[in-house]
């Protein structure tokens, strides 16, 4: 998500520059040939990135779409065109319905929570607190830990006789089953993802906070606005853009969540953490059902495309 946004911005500004130079009366052939040469140079310089884009994104995408219409026989290895059969199988499979429900509910709960908490932490660490740099760093540190390591740390902490239950018992609460219970496993994974992600997303909100001109706060102070009034009328409205970005980028990230599920629960207990990325991996690599796995990839791409469209819309409204 983040690179895509950056590319769009660059493309827009490049477009403007071209338009400006375009209508100018051409003084001489030399100038025109220089323009052609500049364009060629631009293409040459872009070519590594374009090639990488084609080889690593476009080709696999085409291959996924192609395979989603094919059936590979487990017995013979023969691959044949199978029309929409993979999609029909997937869309009528109660297992896939439950994957969609688990993934959507997980995202609907997790992402707003991350946005609210990272904004709250950003606001908190934007206050004049002693050692504020230290607090910020401590909140950010988990973001620098790879997902697999985060999962392993939490798997030990969330064991039935692990650290978290020891703390619960210390304060007089009953121990919880966490990852071994179908009603708590998704919640437990949500907690560890939030722990790992908060600091990262907080940085974006802090950047947004720094963009708000001090003059607005000074004017509001002159008008007698208190802390709460300034938060509701100035800070939050002007943070809408970074918060929308965090919400959407974080949603995309959460849709692609895989490591903790693979390491900790393998989609269980009873499918309660079978998020869509793990289901794709499971169908493609463990069950050997490549066609259906790729059909699921295509459905995931479409879902994410809808989310990106929503992002455009949110950002456009903000501009108007």
């Amino acid at each position: 998500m983040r690179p895509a946004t950056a590319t769009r911005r660059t493309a827009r500004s490049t477009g403007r520059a071209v338009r400006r130079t375009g209508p100018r009366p051409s003084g001489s052939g030399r100038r025109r040939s220089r323009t052609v040469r500049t364009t060629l140079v631009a293409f040459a310089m872009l070519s590594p990135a374009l090639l990488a884009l084609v080889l690593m994104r476009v080709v696999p995408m085409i291959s996924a779409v192609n395979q989603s219409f094919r059936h590979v026989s487990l017995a013979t290895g023969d691959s044949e065109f199978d029309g929409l059969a993979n999609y029909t199988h997937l869309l009528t499979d109660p297992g896939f319905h439950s994957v969609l429900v688990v993934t959507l509910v997980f995202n609907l709960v997790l992402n707003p929570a991350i946005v609210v908490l990272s904004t709250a932490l950003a606001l908190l660490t934007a206050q004049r607190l002693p050692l504020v740099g230290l607090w910020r760093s401590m909140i950010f540190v988990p973001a620098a830990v790879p997902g697999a390591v985060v999962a392993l740390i939490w798997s030990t902490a969330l064991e039935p006789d692990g650290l978290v239950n020891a703390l619960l018992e210390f304060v007089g609460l009953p121990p919880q089953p966490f990852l071994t219970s179908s009603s708590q496993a998704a919640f437990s994974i949500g907690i560890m993802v939030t722990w790992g992600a908060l600091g990262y997303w907080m940085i974006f909100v802090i950047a947004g906070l720094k963009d708000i001109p001090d003059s607005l706060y000074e004017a509001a102070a002159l008008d007698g606005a208190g802390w709460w009034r300034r938060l509701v009328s100035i800070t939050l409205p002007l943070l809408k853009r970074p918060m929308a970005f965090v919400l959407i980028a974080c949603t995309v990230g959460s849709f692609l969540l895989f490591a903790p599920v693979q390491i900790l629960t393998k989609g269980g207990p009873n499918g309660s953490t079978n998020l869509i990325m793990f289901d794709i991996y499971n169908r493609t690599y463990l069950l050997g059902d490549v066609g259906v796995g790729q059909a699921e990839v295509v459905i995931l791409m479409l879902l994410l495309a809808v989310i990106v469209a929503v992002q455009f819309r949110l950002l456009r409204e903000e501009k108007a």
Partner: protein
Amino acid sequence: MGQPTTRTLSVAAAIGAGLLVLAGCGGSATNSSGGGDEEITLTFANADPAETWAAVIEGFEEQHPGITVKQLNIPYAQYTSTINQRMGSGGEGIDLMVVDAGGAALDWNNRGYLADITDLREDAIAAAVSESMVTAREVDGKLLALAPWTTSQFLYYNVDVLAAAGVEAPPSDPATPWTYEQLTEAARAVQSAGAAEYPLLFDQWDTYYQLQMMGVSAGGGDGIDADGVVDFSDDGWQHALSWYHGLFEDGLSPRGITNDKNGALFQEGKAAFIISGPWGVSVANAGGIDYGVAPAPYFEGGEAATSTDSWAVGVSSKTENLDAAKEFLRYLTIDPDGNAQAAEVAGITPTNKEAFAAYVEQVNASAGAATAGFGAILQYQLENNAVHRPTVVGYSVFEPGAGQLFSDIRNGSDPAERAAQADEEITAQIERLR
């Protein structure tokens, strides 16, 4: 900026692009020797780190100066799909490959990926610890792979913990193992005496490899038949699964502990019993605990059964170096020195009689009285009650499905209901993929 800079940059960019293209294509550029009679390069695809096979390759190359063996190390999770893809698109550049236990040999035989190596059968059986470790890799009377490694299962116990709980240690005579019922009773005694945090651990929770022997021992068979019909609902499997379910319900075994931690917990003296493979010896030795080794249990009224097998190695049907590839396979399995080298780094049991004898002698002596009976148990189990994973179409679908079933039962799902669901889902999935 001046023009030369722009030009230099664009040239650099073009070179960069060229390199990218090369990098994109480079991965598939493997070779096999041309028509010459010297300098053959064999490519050996496996799912281990390169060092696992380095010693045996070095030994082989020393004895066969004209042959070089190059490894293609593929991560385990992608191994089967990578081989399917590479072999499906011509199989160029792969001469030998490891073949997992279970249905892999059958699947790859149906797809025409594996060369018939029946001409090695007689020598392989003569050299192997047991005949079944060779014949388990036969399909339609054709031998398709040979196993350099094998495994079995043992009941390891902590002597001090059992003494503290007043429990008598299980016998080490492989002909008279404990029953699972006796084991449960002992684990209960450990629990009520508070002698160990974990009365009973398994090395690999929720895996078919670990649980197959329990289903077979209880009379439930493999859980899948030759037509790919799954049945975990029969009396035998239900007996085994209810027992498994009960261990966690009663707190004799822990939920939420992942497989990487079990060995370490036993090693640290936190468990009374662990059911584990031959590698359990080195794990326990590293802990400095007083332990003992007994044969794997069986269900009362049922038969003794112990899980076995590991990777085998097959020759690609597309290889242009069939003789050299077979020579390497012969060295890996039939040659005692080669087989010992093949098992050395992995620390796993070799299949060749002579290599096996040397391995057993070394393990028996590794921890005094604790391991003195290890070799006798291992040999007895391999010869008398080893259960091989079923060679059926759809095994690759069956195994992960069974793993999910066991995992859910461990976490509290009802064994009968969850087994019925697994029977239906896995059977339908196998049928769909036929």
